[in-house]
Protein backbone atom coordinates (compact mmCIF):
# COMPACT_ATOMS: atom_id res chain seq x y z
CA UNK A 1 0.00 0.00 0.00
CA UNK A 2 0.97 3.60 -0.26
CA UNK A 3 3.54 4.97 2.09
CA UNK A 4 5.35 8.19 2.83
CA UNK A 5 5.85 11.19 0.58
CA UNK A 6 7.83 10.47 -2.51
CA UNK A 7 6.69 12.05 -5.72
CA UNK A 8 6.87 9.95 -8.84
CA UNK A 9 8.58 12.51 -10.97
CA UNK A 10 10.26 11.54 -14.19
CA UNK A 11 10.82 8.02 -13.00
CA UNK A 12 11.12 6.57 -16.50
CA UNK A 13 13.93 8.99 -17.25
CA UNK A 14 15.64 8.23 -13.99
CA UNK A 15 15.31 4.54 -14.70
CA UNK A 16 16.76 5.00 -18.14
CA UNK A 17 19.74 6.96 -16.91
CA UNK A 18 20.26 4.33 -14.26
CA UNK A 19 20.14 1.54 -16.82
CA UNK A 20 22.44 3.34 -19.19
CA UNK A 21 24.97 4.12 -16.54
CA UNK A 22 24.81 0.54 -15.35
CA UNK A 23 25.34 -0.68 -18.90
CA UNK A 24 28.23 1.72 -19.48
CA UNK A 25 30.13 1.15 -16.27
CA UNK A 26 29.38 -2.51 -15.77
CA UNK A 27 27.62 -3.40 -12.54
CA UNK A 28 29.13 -2.36 -9.27
CA UNK A 29 31.28 -4.96 -7.63
CA UNK A 30 31.13 -3.86 -4.01
CA UNK A 31 29.83 -7.17 -2.66
CA UNK A 32 29.81 -8.40 0.90
CA UNK A 33 31.90 -11.44 1.82
CA UNK A 34 28.83 -13.61 1.29
CA UNK A 35 27.60 -11.91 -1.85
CA UNK A 36 24.61 -9.63 -2.13
CA UNK A 37 20.85 -9.48 -2.10
CA UNK A 38 18.76 -6.98 -4.07
CA UNK A 39 15.60 -5.83 -2.31
CA UNK A 40 12.74 -3.84 -3.85
CA UNK A 41 10.42 -2.39 -1.20
CA UNK A 42 7.97 0.47 -0.66
CA UNK A 43 9.42 3.88 0.12
CA UNK A 44 10.15 4.33 3.85
CA UNK A 45 8.83 0.92 4.67
CA UNK A 46 11.68 -0.39 6.78
CA UNK A 47 13.91 0.76 9.62
CA UNK A 48 17.24 1.36 7.84
CA UNK A 49 19.02 0.22 10.99
CA UNK A 50 17.70 -3.32 10.43
CA UNK A 51 19.37 -3.46 7.02
CA UNK A 52 22.66 -2.39 8.54
CA UNK A 53 22.30 -5.04 11.23
CA UNK A 54 21.55 -7.71 8.63
CA UNK A 55 24.63 -6.77 6.64
CA UNK A 56 26.77 -6.93 9.76
CA UNK A 57 25.44 -10.27 10.97
CA UNK A 58 25.32 -12.08 7.65
CA UNK A 59 28.13 -10.51 5.66
CA UNK A 60 25.67 -10.07 2.81
CA UNK A 61 25.57 -6.73 1.06
CA UNK A 62 22.03 -5.38 0.68
CA UNK A 63 21.21 -3.38 -2.41
CA UNK A 64 18.00 -1.62 -1.50
CA UNK A 65 15.65 0.02 -3.97
CA UNK A 66 12.24 1.62 -3.39
CA UNK A 67 8.98 1.95 -5.32
CA UNK A 68 5.93 4.17 -4.86
CA UNK A 69 3.05 2.09 -6.15
CA UNK A 70 2.39 -1.55 -6.97
CA UNK A 71 1.72 -0.44 -10.50
CA UNK A 72 5.11 1.20 -10.91
CA UNK A 73 6.88 -1.77 -9.30
CA UNK A 74 5.40 -4.36 -11.63
CA UNK A 75 6.76 -3.28 -15.03
CA UNK A 76 10.23 -2.80 -13.59
CA UNK A 77 10.35 -6.30 -12.17
CA UNK A 78 8.75 -7.76 -15.28
CA UNK A 79 11.24 -6.15 -17.66
CA UNK A 80 14.06 -7.75 -15.72
CA UNK A 81 16.09 -4.59 -16.18
CA UNK A 82 17.34 -5.01 -12.63
CA UNK A 83 17.49 -8.59 -11.36
CA UNK A 84 15.78 -8.13 -8.01
CA UNK A 85 15.80 -10.97 -5.51
CA UNK A 86 13.01 -9.81 -3.20
CA UNK A 87 10.01 -7.55 -3.60
CA UNK A 88 7.24 -6.53 -1.23
CA UNK A 89 4.03 -6.08 -3.25
CA UNK A 90 0.44 -6.02 -2.01
CA UNK A 91 -2.05 -8.86 -2.20
CA UNK A 92 -3.65 -8.26 -5.60
CA UNK A 93 -0.32 -7.54 -7.23
CA UNK A 94 1.06 -10.78 -5.82
CA UNK A 95 -1.76 -12.73 -7.43
CA UNK A 96 -0.94 -11.03 -10.73
CA UNK A 97 2.70 -12.00 -10.34
CA UNK A 98 1.77 -15.58 -9.46
CA UNK A 99 -0.48 -15.79 -12.52
CA UNK A 100 2.34 -14.57 -14.71
CA UNK A 101 4.84 -17.01 -13.23
CA UNK A 102 7.11 -14.32 -11.85
CA UNK A 103 7.55 -15.72 -8.33
CA UNK A 104 9.62 -18.49 -6.87
CA UNK A 105 8.21 -20.92 -4.31
CA UNK A 106 9.20 -20.33 -0.71
CA UNK A 107 11.16 -23.03 1.06
CA UNK A 108 9.98 -22.61 4.64
CA UNK A 109 12.77 -24.86 5.95
CA UNK A 110 15.19 -22.08 5.08
CA UNK A 111 13.02 -19.40 6.66
CA UNK A 112 12.20 -20.85 10.09
CA UNK A 113 11.21 -17.49 11.60
CA UNK A 114 8.41 -17.11 9.08
CA UNK A 115 6.60 -20.23 10.28
CA UNK A 116 7.40 -19.59 13.93
CA UNK A 117 6.58 -15.88 14.29
CA UNK A 118 3.98 -14.94 11.72
CA UNK A 119 0.43 -15.50 12.99
CA UNK A 120 -1.55 -18.32 11.40
CA UNK A 121 -4.50 -16.01 10.73
CA UNK A 122 -2.34 -13.94 8.38
CA UNK A 123 -1.39 -16.97 6.33
CA UNK A 124 -5.07 -17.84 6.30
CA UNK A 125 -5.84 -14.37 5.00
CA UNK A 126 -3.10 -14.62 2.37
CA UNK A 127 -4.81 -17.62 0.80
CA UNK A 128 -7.11 -15.18 -0.94
CA UNK A 129 -4.30 -14.36 -3.35
CA UNK A 130 -1.78 -17.14 -2.66
CA UNK A 131 -3.98 -20.25 -2.24
CA UNK A 132 -1.36 -22.62 -0.83
CA UNK A 133 0.86 -20.04 0.90
CA UNK A 134 3.57 -21.02 -1.53
CA UNK A 135 4.87 -17.59 -2.51
CA UNK A 136 4.22 -14.83 0.01
CA UNK A 137 5.34 -14.16 3.58
CA UNK A 138 3.29 -11.39 5.25
CA UNK A 139 5.29 -8.29 6.20
CA UNK A 140 2.70 -5.60 7.02
CA UNK A 141 -1.04 -5.39 6.93
CA UNK A 142 -3.79 -2.97 7.66
CA UNK A 143 -7.14 -1.53 6.75
CA UNK A 144 -8.29 1.53 4.85
CA UNK A 145 -10.50 3.74 6.94
CA UNK A 146 -11.62 7.22 7.82
CA UNK A 147 -9.51 9.60 9.82
CA UNK A 148 -11.49 12.54 11.15
CA UNK A 149 -10.83 15.57 13.28
CA UNK A 150 -13.14 15.56 16.30
CA UNK A 151 -13.10 19.32 16.57
CA UNK A 152 -14.25 19.79 12.98
CA UNK A 153 -17.22 17.42 12.73
CA UNK A 154 -20.66 17.66 14.30
CA UNK A 155 -21.12 13.98 15.02
CA UNK A 156 -18.78 10.98 15.05
CA UNK A 157 -18.00 9.67 11.60
CA UNK A 158 -18.72 5.97 11.33
CA UNK A 159 -19.87 5.43 7.75
CA UNK A 160 -18.57 6.00 4.24
CA UNK A 161 -21.95 7.59 3.58
CA UNK A 162 -20.89 10.63 5.59
CA UNK A 163 -18.28 11.40 2.95
CA UNK A 164 -21.22 12.40 0.77
CA UNK A 165 -22.69 14.74 3.41
CA UNK A 166 -22.94 18.27 2.01
CA UNK A 167 -22.08 19.88 5.33
CA UNK A 168 -18.55 18.58 4.96
CA UNK A 169 -18.10 20.15 1.53
CA UNK A 170 -14.50 21.15 0.90
CA UNK A 171 -13.50 19.28 4.04
CA UNK A 172 -13.02 15.80 2.61
CA UNK A 173 -9.79 14.23 1.38
CA UNK A 174 -10.12 11.25 -0.95
CA UNK A 175 -7.43 8.80 -2.02
CA UNK A 176 -6.02 9.56 -5.45
CA UNK A 177 -5.72 5.95 -6.52
CA UNK A 178 -8.22 4.04 -8.56
CA UNK A 179 -8.87 0.98 -6.39
CA UNK A 180 -9.01 2.85 -3.08
CA UNK A 181 -11.36 5.48 -4.46
CA UNK A 182 -13.70 2.96 -6.07
CA UNK A 183 -13.63 0.76 -3.00
CA UNK A 184 -15.27 3.53 -0.96
CA UNK A 185 -18.13 3.95 -3.43
CA UNK A 186 -18.54 0.21 -3.95
CA UNK A 187 -18.76 -0.51 -0.24
CA UNK A 188 -21.27 2.30 0.16
CA UNK A 189 -23.38 0.67 -2.56
CA UNK A 190 -23.02 -2.67 -0.83
CA UNK A 191 -21.07 -4.13 -3.76
CA UNK A 192 -17.84 -6.06 -3.84
CA UNK A 193 -14.66 -4.04 -4.32
CA UNK A 194 -13.57 -6.61 -6.89
CA UNK A 195 -16.66 -6.42 -9.04
CA UNK A 196 -16.47 -6.40 -12.82
CA UNK A 197 -20.21 -5.95 -13.19
CA UNK A 198 -20.72 -2.96 -15.52
CA UNK A 199 -23.82 -1.75 -13.69
CA UNK A 200 -22.16 -1.82 -10.28
CA UNK A 201 -19.12 -0.06 -11.69
CA UNK A 202 -21.19 2.65 -13.35
CA UNK A 203 -23.08 3.15 -10.10
CA UNK A 204 -19.78 3.53 -8.23
CA UNK A 205 -18.47 5.93 -10.85
CA UNK A 206 -21.59 8.09 -10.67
CA UNK A 207 -21.37 8.16 -6.90
CA UNK A 208 -17.77 9.37 -7.09
CA UNK A 209 -18.72 12.04 -9.62
CA UNK A 210 -21.53 13.14 -7.31
CA UNK A 211 -19.03 13.43 -4.47
CA UNK A 212 -16.45 15.36 -6.44
CA UNK A 213 -17.74 18.89 -5.67
CA UNK A 214 -17.52 18.10 -1.95
CA UNK A 215 -13.96 16.80 -2.12
CA UNK A 216 -11.26 19.23 -1.11
CA UNK A 217 -8.48 17.28 -2.84
CA UNK A 218 -7.52 13.86 -4.16
CA UNK A 219 -4.26 13.01 -2.46
CA UNK A 220 -2.10 10.02 -1.72
CA UNK A 221 0.55 10.62 0.90
CA UNK A 222 -0.38 14.19 1.67
CA UNK A 223 -3.51 13.11 3.51
CA UNK A 224 -1.26 12.56 6.54
CA UNK A 225 0.15 16.07 6.70
CA UNK A 226 -3.11 17.72 5.73
CA UNK A 227 -5.02 15.94 8.49
CA UNK A 228 -2.33 16.74 11.06
CA UNK A 229 -2.43 20.38 9.99
CA UNK A 230 -6.24 20.54 10.28
CA UNK A 231 -6.68 21.29 6.59
CA UNK A 232 -9.65 18.96 6.30
CA UNK A 233 -12.16 17.35 8.64
CA UNK A 234 -12.28 13.90 7.08
CA UNK A 235 -9.75 11.87 5.13
CA UNK A 236 -9.47 8.37 3.70
CA UNK A 237 -6.25 6.88 5.03
CA UNK A 238 -4.33 3.65 5.65
CA UNK A 239 -4.47 2.42 9.21
CA UNK A 240 -0.66 2.37 9.34
CA UNK A 241 -0.59 6.15 9.08
CA UNK A 242 -3.25 6.62 11.74
CA UNK A 243 -1.09 5.93 14.80
CA UNK A 244 1.50 8.40 13.58
CA UNK A 245 -1.03 11.13 12.80
CA UNK A 246 -2.69 10.74 16.20
CA UNK A 247 0.63 11.22 17.93
CA UNK A 248 1.04 14.48 16.05
CA UNK A 249 -2.56 15.64 16.48
CA UNK A 250 -4.59 14.07 19.32
CA UNK A 251 -7.89 15.36 17.87
CA UNK A 252 -7.74 12.77 15.11
CA UNK A 253 -9.79 9.58 15.29
CA UNK A 254 -9.49 6.54 13.03
CA UNK A 255 -12.50 4.36 12.27
CA UNK A 256 -13.21 1.34 10.13
CA UNK A 257 -16.46 2.33 8.41
CA UNK A 258 -19.56 0.25 9.07
CA UNK A 259 -20.11 -0.53 5.41
CA UNK A 260 -16.85 -2.46 5.41
CA UNK A 261 -13.50 -1.78 3.85
CA UNK A 262 -10.34 -3.17 2.34
CA UNK A 263 -7.94 -5.30 4.37
CA UNK A 264 -4.58 -5.51 2.71
CA UNK A 265 -1.35 -7.41 3.27
CA UNK A 266 2.03 -6.53 1.85
CA UNK A 267 4.26 -9.58 1.67
CA UNK A 268 7.81 -10.56 0.92
CA UNK A 269 8.16 -12.57 -2.26
CA UNK A 270 11.22 -14.08 -3.91
CA UNK A 271 11.33 -13.52 -7.64
CA UNK A 272 11.61 -16.40 -10.06
CA UNK A 273 14.85 -15.18 -11.61
CA UNK A 274 16.42 -14.09 -8.34
CA UNK A 275 20.19 -14.39 -8.73
CA UNK A 276 20.76 -14.70 -4.97
CA UNK A 277 17.99 -16.98 -3.72
CA UNK A 278 19.90 -18.24 -0.66
CA UNK A 279 20.63 -14.71 0.48
CA UNK A 280 17.05 -13.71 -0.18
CA UNK A 281 15.85 -16.44 2.17
CA UNK A 282 18.29 -15.25 4.81
CA UNK A 283 17.09 -11.68 4.43
CA UNK A 284 13.42 -12.59 4.81
CA UNK A 285 14.20 -14.84 7.75
CA UNK A 286 16.04 -11.96 9.41
CA UNK A 287 13.11 -9.61 8.83
CA UNK A 288 10.77 -12.17 10.43
CA UNK A 289 12.88 -12.33 13.59
CA UNK A 290 10.79 -10.91 16.42
CA UNK A 291 13.22 -8.21 17.56
CA UNK A 292 13.76 -7.00 13.98
CA UNK A 293 10.03 -7.03 13.20
CA UNK A 294 9.49 -5.00 16.37
CA UNK A 295 12.07 -2.43 15.27
CA UNK A 296 10.33 -2.13 11.93
CA UNK A 297 6.89 -1.83 13.50
CA UNK A 298 8.06 0.93 15.79
CA UNK A 299 9.69 2.75 12.91
CA UNK A 300 6.95 2.59 10.29
CA UNK A 301 3.89 2.03 12.58
CA UNK A 302 2.20 -0.28 10.09
CA UNK A 303 0.57 -3.32 11.72
CA UNK A 304 2.88 -6.30 11.89
CA UNK A 305 1.63 -9.86 11.34
CA UNK A 306 4.55 -10.97 13.50
CA UNK A 307 2.80 -12.24 16.63
CA UNK A 308 6.04 -12.75 18.52
CA UNK A 309 7.02 -9.14 17.82
CA UNK A 310 3.65 -7.86 18.99
CA UNK A 311 4.19 -9.63 22.31
CA UNK A 312 7.39 -7.62 22.73
CA UNK A 313 5.68 -4.23 22.39
CA UNK A 314 6.09 -2.48 25.71
CA UNK A 315 3.40 0.21 25.51
CA UNK A 316 0.16 -1.55 26.38
CA UNK A 317 -2.06 0.90 24.51
CA UNK A 318 -0.15 0.27 21.28
CA UNK A 319 0.03 -3.45 21.81
CA UNK A 320 -3.75 -3.58 22.19
CA UNK A 321 -4.45 -0.72 19.82
CA UNK A 322 -7.71 -1.06 17.94
CA UNK A 323 -6.08 0.71 15.04
CA UNK A 324 -2.93 -1.34 14.72
CA UNK A 325 -4.47 -4.66 15.69
CA UNK A 326 -8.22 -4.54 15.14
CA UNK A 327 -10.23 -7.67 15.78
CA UNK A 328 -11.28 -8.35 12.22
CA UNK A 329 -13.84 -10.95 13.23
CA UNK A 330 -16.07 -8.07 14.41
CA UNK A 331 -16.53 -6.97 10.83
CA UNK A 332 -18.30 -9.12 8.32
CA UNK A 333 -17.87 -7.02 5.19
CA UNK A 334 -14.12 -6.72 4.88
CA UNK A 335 -12.50 -7.69 1.62
CA UNK A 336 -9.07 -7.93 0.09
CA UNK A 337 -8.35 -6.70 -3.42
CA UNK A 338 -8.09 -9.34 -6.10
CA UNK A 339 -6.21 -8.89 -9.35
CA UNK A 340 -8.83 -8.13 -11.99
CA UNK A 341 -6.87 -9.10 -15.06
CA UNK A 342 -5.63 -6.69 -17.69
CA UNK A 343 -9.10 -5.97 -19.05
CA UNK A 344 -10.45 -5.37 -15.56
CA UNK A 345 -7.61 -3.00 -14.72
CA UNK A 346 -8.21 -1.15 -17.97
CA UNK A 347 -11.92 -0.81 -17.21
CA UNK A 348 -11.30 0.58 -13.71
CA UNK A 349 -8.69 3.01 -14.97
CA UNK A 350 -10.94 4.32 -17.72
CA UNK A 351 -13.79 4.89 -15.27
CA UNK A 352 -11.46 6.59 -12.80
CA UNK A 353 -10.23 8.87 -15.56
CA UNK A 354 -13.84 9.80 -16.25
CA UNK A 355 -14.30 10.72 -12.60
CA UNK A 356 -11.12 12.75 -12.50
CA UNK A 357 -11.80 14.54 -15.77
CA UNK A 358 -15.44 15.25 -14.97
Amino acid sequence: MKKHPIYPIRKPIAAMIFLLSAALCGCSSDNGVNGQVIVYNWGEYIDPETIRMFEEESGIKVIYDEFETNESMYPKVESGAVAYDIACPSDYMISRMIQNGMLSEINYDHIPNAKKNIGAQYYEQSRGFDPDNKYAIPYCWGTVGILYNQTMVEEPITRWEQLWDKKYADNILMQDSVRDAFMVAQKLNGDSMNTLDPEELTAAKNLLIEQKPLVQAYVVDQVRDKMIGGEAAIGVIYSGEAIYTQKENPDLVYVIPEEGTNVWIDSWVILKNAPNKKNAEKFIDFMCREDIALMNFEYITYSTPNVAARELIEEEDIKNSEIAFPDLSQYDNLETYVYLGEDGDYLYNELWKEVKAY
Partner: protein
Amino acid sequence: MTSKNKWLSTPYIVWSVVFIIVPLGMILYYGLTDATGAFTLDNITAIASAGHAKALRVSLFLSLVSTLVCFLLAYPLAMILARMQTKRHNFIILIFILPMWMNFLLRTLAWQTLLEKNGVINHVLTFLHLPTLKIINTPAAIVLGMVYNFLPFMVLPLYNSLAKIDVNVINAARDLGANHFYTFIRIILPLSVPGIISGITMVFIPALTTFVISALLGGGKLLLIGDVIEQEFTRTSNWHLGSGLSMVLMIFIVINMILSAIFDKDGEGSML
Protein backbone atom coordinates in the same frame (compact mmCIF):
# COMPACT_ATOMS: atom_id res chain seq x y z
CA MET B 1 34.12 26.18 -36.77
CA THR B 2 36.83 24.74 -38.97
CA SER B 3 36.51 21.17 -40.20
CA LYS B 4 39.46 20.21 -38.01
CA ASN B 5 37.48 20.96 -34.89
CA LYS B 6 34.36 19.12 -35.91
CA TRP B 7 35.14 16.21 -33.64
CA LEU B 8 34.56 18.57 -30.73
CA SER B 9 30.86 18.24 -31.38
CA THR B 10 30.99 14.47 -30.90
CA PRO B 11 29.91 14.55 -27.23
CA TYR B 12 26.95 16.68 -28.17
CA ILE B 13 26.01 14.40 -31.05
CA VAL B 14 26.27 11.32 -28.85
CA TRP B 15 24.20 13.08 -26.21
CA SER B 16 21.51 14.05 -28.71
CA VAL B 17 21.30 10.60 -30.18
CA VAL B 18 21.12 8.80 -26.85
CA PHE B 19 18.86 11.21 -24.97
CA ILE B 20 16.83 12.88 -27.70
CA ILE B 21 16.67 10.82 -30.89
CA VAL B 22 16.38 7.39 -29.27
CA PRO B 23 13.69 8.38 -26.74
CA LEU B 24 11.73 10.15 -29.48
CA GLY B 25 11.97 7.01 -31.59
CA MET B 26 10.73 4.95 -28.64
CA ILE B 27 7.76 7.25 -28.14
CA LEU B 28 7.00 7.02 -31.85
CA TYR B 29 7.20 3.24 -31.70
CA TYR B 30 5.06 2.89 -28.57
CA GLY B 31 2.58 5.50 -29.76
CA LEU B 32 1.93 3.70 -33.03
CA THR B 33 1.69 0.15 -31.70
CA ASP B 34 -0.63 -1.72 -29.36
CA ALA B 35 0.26 -4.21 -26.62
CA THR B 36 0.87 -6.96 -29.17
CA GLY B 37 3.23 -4.78 -31.20
CA ALA B 38 0.84 -4.40 -34.14
CA PHE B 39 0.50 -1.05 -35.87
CA THR B 40 -2.43 1.07 -34.71
CA LEU B 41 -3.60 4.66 -34.64
CA ASP B 42 -5.89 4.08 -31.64
CA ASN B 43 -3.48 5.66 -29.20
CA ILE B 44 -3.57 8.88 -31.16
CA THR B 45 -7.28 8.98 -31.87
CA ALA B 46 -7.82 8.29 -28.15
CA ILE B 47 -7.40 12.03 -27.66
CA ALA B 48 -10.94 12.42 -28.99
CA SER B 49 -12.46 10.43 -26.12
CA ALA B 50 -14.44 12.62 -23.73
CA GLY B 51 -12.03 12.47 -20.79
CA HIS B 52 -8.88 13.07 -22.83
CA ALA B 53 -10.42 15.82 -24.95
CA LYS B 54 -11.58 17.63 -21.84
CA ALA B 55 -8.16 17.28 -20.23
CA LEU B 56 -6.57 18.72 -23.36
CA ARG B 57 -9.05 21.60 -23.49
CA VAL B 58 -8.49 22.45 -19.84
CA SER B 59 -4.72 22.26 -20.31
CA LEU B 60 -4.80 24.49 -23.38
CA PHE B 61 -7.01 27.01 -21.61
CA LEU B 62 -4.97 27.14 -18.40
CA SER B 63 -1.66 27.37 -20.23
CA LEU B 64 -2.97 30.13 -22.48
CA VAL B 65 -4.16 32.07 -19.44
CA SER B 66 -0.82 31.52 -17.71
CA THR B 67 1.09 32.62 -20.78
CA LEU B 68 -1.01 35.76 -21.05
CA VAL B 69 -0.55 36.61 -17.37
CA CYS B 70 3.18 35.97 -17.65
CA PHE B 71 3.35 38.24 -20.68
CA LEU B 72 1.45 41.07 -19.01
CA LEU B 73 3.67 40.84 -15.93
CA ALA B 74 6.92 40.37 -17.78
CA TYR B 75 6.70 42.99 -20.50
CA PRO B 76 6.75 46.11 -18.29
CA LEU B 77 9.43 44.50 -16.16
CA ALA B 78 11.56 43.72 -19.19
CA MET B 79 11.17 47.31 -20.39
CA ILE B 80 12.30 48.68 -17.07
CA LEU B 81 15.24 46.29 -17.01
CA ALA B 82 16.26 47.14 -20.54
CA ARG B 83 16.58 50.80 -19.65
CA MET B 84 18.60 50.28 -16.50
CA GLN B 85 22.34 50.47 -16.16
CA THR B 86 24.12 47.17 -16.60
CA LYS B 87 25.15 46.84 -12.97
CA ARG B 88 21.68 47.25 -11.54
CA HIS B 89 19.82 45.17 -14.06
CA ASN B 90 22.23 42.29 -13.60
CA PHE B 91 21.31 42.33 -9.93
CA ILE B 92 17.60 42.34 -10.66
CA ILE B 93 17.92 39.52 -13.16
CA LEU B 94 19.82 37.59 -10.52
CA ILE B 95 16.93 38.07 -8.12
CA PHE B 96 14.61 36.68 -10.76
CA ILE B 97 16.73 33.65 -11.44
CA LEU B 98 17.54 33.02 -7.79
CA PRO B 99 14.38 30.99 -7.02
CA MET B 100 15.27 28.74 -9.94
CA TRP B 101 18.30 27.57 -8.02
CA MET B 102 15.87 25.69 -5.86
CA ASN B 103 14.12 22.56 -6.99
CA PHE B 104 10.95 23.14 -8.97
CA LEU B 105 9.04 20.65 -6.83
CA LEU B 106 10.05 22.30 -3.57
CA ARG B 107 8.95 25.68 -4.82
CA THR B 108 5.58 24.31 -5.82
CA LEU B 109 5.20 22.55 -2.47
CA ALA B 110 6.02 25.83 -0.80
CA TRP B 111 3.09 27.43 -2.60
CA GLN B 112 0.89 24.69 -1.27
CA THR B 113 1.95 25.54 2.27
CA LEU B 114 1.40 29.21 1.58
CA LEU B 115 -2.04 28.87 0.04
CA GLU B 116 -3.58 26.17 2.24
CA LYS B 117 -6.67 26.88 4.31
CA ASN B 118 -4.51 27.00 7.42
CA GLY B 119 -1.55 28.16 5.40
CA VAL B 120 0.85 31.00 5.97
CA ILE B 121 -1.02 33.57 3.89
CA ASN B 122 -4.34 32.87 5.57
CA HIS B 123 -2.74 33.06 9.02
CA VAL B 124 -1.49 36.52 8.20
CA LEU B 125 -4.84 37.55 6.74
CA THR B 126 -6.74 36.27 9.79
CA PHE B 127 -4.31 38.09 12.05
CA LEU B 128 -5.06 41.30 10.19
CA HIS B 129 -8.83 40.54 10.36
CA LEU B 130 -9.04 40.32 6.61
CA PRO B 131 -11.09 37.75 4.69
CA THR B 132 -9.17 34.58 3.96
CA LEU B 133 -7.99 33.41 0.57
CA LYS B 134 -9.69 30.36 -0.89
CA ILE B 135 -7.77 29.46 -4.01
CA ILE B 136 -5.99 26.24 -3.07
CA ASN B 137 -7.32 23.27 -5.07
CA THR B 138 -8.87 25.54 -7.72
CA PRO B 139 -7.82 26.30 -11.30
CA ALA B 140 -6.65 29.71 -10.08
CA ALA B 141 -4.05 28.04 -7.89
CA ILE B 142 -2.79 26.05 -10.87
CA VAL B 143 -2.46 29.22 -12.93
CA LEU B 144 -0.65 30.88 -10.07
CA GLY B 145 1.77 27.97 -9.85
CA MET B 146 2.41 28.05 -13.58
CA VAL B 147 2.94 31.81 -13.65
CA TYR B 148 5.27 31.69 -10.69
CA ASN B 149 7.34 28.85 -12.07
CA PHE B 150 7.54 29.97 -15.67
CA LEU B 151 7.72 33.77 -15.36
CA PRO B 152 11.53 33.95 -15.68
CA PHE B 153 11.25 32.16 -19.01
CA MET B 154 9.14 35.03 -20.25
CA VAL B 155 11.17 37.84 -18.72
CA LEU B 156 14.55 36.81 -20.08
CA PRO B 157 13.78 36.58 -23.82
CA LEU B 158 11.70 39.76 -23.64
CA TYR B 159 14.48 41.59 -21.87
CA ASN B 160 16.95 40.29 -24.41
CA SER B 161 15.10 41.56 -27.43
CA LEU B 162 14.16 44.87 -25.79
CA ALA B 163 17.75 45.54 -24.76
CA LYS B 164 18.84 45.08 -28.36
CA ILE B 165 16.62 47.87 -29.67
CA ASP B 166 18.84 50.77 -30.71
CA VAL B 167 18.04 53.80 -28.53
CA ASN B 168 18.56 55.99 -31.59
CA VAL B 169 15.57 54.39 -33.28
CA ILE B 170 13.40 55.35 -30.36
CA ASN B 171 14.88 58.84 -30.25
CA ALA B 172 14.26 59.24 -33.96
CA ALA B 173 10.62 58.33 -33.49
CA ARG B 174 10.30 60.88 -30.71
CA ASP B 175 12.03 63.53 -32.89
CA LEU B 176 9.55 62.90 -35.63
CA GLY B 177 6.69 63.63 -33.29
CA ALA B 178 5.57 60.24 -32.05
CA ASN B 179 4.29 60.33 -28.50
CA HIS B 180 5.14 57.64 -25.91
CA PHE B 181 2.18 55.52 -26.83
CA TYR B 182 2.87 55.70 -30.55
CA THR B 183 6.54 54.96 -30.12
CA PHE B 184 5.63 51.90 -28.15
CA ILE B 185 3.02 50.62 -30.59
CA ARG B 186 4.97 51.33 -33.78
CA ILE B 187 8.59 50.86 -32.74
CA ILE B 188 9.19 49.01 -29.49
CA LEU B 189 6.47 46.37 -29.74
CA PRO B 190 7.21 45.30 -33.36
CA LEU B 191 10.94 45.15 -32.66
CA SER B 192 10.40 42.94 -29.65
CA VAL B 193 8.26 40.38 -31.48
CA PRO B 194 11.04 37.76 -31.58
CA GLY B 195 11.31 38.01 -27.80
CA ILE B 196 7.57 37.80 -27.38
CA ILE B 197 7.33 34.68 -29.54
CA SER B 198 10.24 33.07 -27.80
CA GLY B 199 8.82 33.91 -24.36
CA ILE B 200 5.41 32.56 -25.29
CA THR B 201 6.97 29.32 -26.48
CA MET B 202 9.03 28.92 -23.36
CA VAL B 203 6.06 29.45 -21.07
CA PHE B 204 3.32 27.84 -23.11
CA ILE B 205 5.02 24.49 -23.73
CA PRO B 206 5.99 23.66 -20.15
CA ALA B 207 2.62 24.95 -18.94
CA LEU B 208 0.81 22.74 -21.42
CA THR B 209 2.68 19.61 -20.42
CA THR B 210 2.96 20.09 -16.66
CA PHE B 211 1.52 17.53 -14.28
CA VAL B 212 3.12 18.32 -10.93
CA ILE B 213 1.53 21.71 -10.48
CA SER B 214 -2.00 20.48 -11.05
CA ALA B 215 -1.54 17.61 -8.62
CA LEU B 216 -0.04 19.75 -5.85
CA LEU B 217 -1.98 22.99 -6.18
CA GLY B 218 -5.12 21.75 -7.90
CA GLY B 219 -5.80 18.97 -5.41
CA GLY B 220 -6.03 16.47 -8.26
CA LYS B 221 -9.52 17.74 -8.99
CA LEU B 222 -8.68 19.02 -12.44
CA LEU B 223 -7.19 16.53 -14.82
CA LEU B 224 -4.67 18.05 -17.23
CA ILE B 225 -3.37 16.24 -20.28
CA GLY B 226 0.05 16.04 -18.60
CA ASP B 227 -1.57 14.21 -15.67
CA VAL B 228 -3.21 11.74 -18.03
CA ILE B 229 0.10 10.95 -19.72
CA GLU B 230 1.94 10.70 -16.42
CA GLN B 231 -0.60 8.26 -15.07
CA GLU B 232 -0.53 6.12 -18.19
CA PHE B 233 3.18 5.62 -17.57
CA THR B 234 3.42 5.38 -13.79
CA ARG B 235 0.13 3.89 -12.67
CA THR B 236 -1.68 2.16 -15.51
CA SER B 237 1.56 1.19 -17.24
CA ASN B 238 -0.07 1.66 -20.61
CA TRP B 239 2.99 3.12 -22.33
CA HIS B 240 1.32 2.85 -25.72
CA LEU B 241 -1.53 5.20 -24.84
CA GLY B 242 0.83 7.52 -22.95
CA SER B 243 3.13 7.76 -25.96
CA GLY B 244 0.23 8.27 -28.37
CA LEU B 245 -1.10 11.15 -26.30
CA SER B 246 2.39 12.64 -26.02
CA MET B 247 2.56 12.65 -29.78
CA VAL B 248 -0.67 14.63 -29.94
CA LEU B 249 0.87 17.16 -27.55
CA MET B 250 3.93 17.33 -29.76
CA ILE B 251 1.72 18.63 -32.57
CA PHE B 252 1.01 21.73 -30.49
CA ILE B 253 4.65 22.11 -29.71
CA VAL B 254 5.60 21.81 -33.37
CA ILE B 255 3.01 24.47 -34.30
CA ASN B 256 4.51 26.70 -31.68
CA MET B 257 8.02 26.10 -32.99
CA ILE B 258 6.99 26.84 -36.57
CA LEU B 259 5.48 30.12 -35.40
CA SER B 260 8.64 31.08 -33.59
CA ALA B 261 10.76 30.11 -36.60
CA ILE B 262 8.69 32.45 -38.77
CA PHE B 263 8.84 35.40 -36.41
CA ASP B 264 12.27 34.90 -34.97
CA LYS B 265 14.47 34.25 -37.99
CA ASP B 266 17.71 35.42 -36.43
CA GLY B 267 17.23 33.69 -33.09
CA GLU B 268 17.25 37.08 -31.43
CA GLY B 269 14.84 36.11 -28.75
CA SER B 270 17.11 33.39 -27.42
CA MET B 271 17.60 33.34 -23.70
CA LEU B 272 20.82 35.16 -22.84
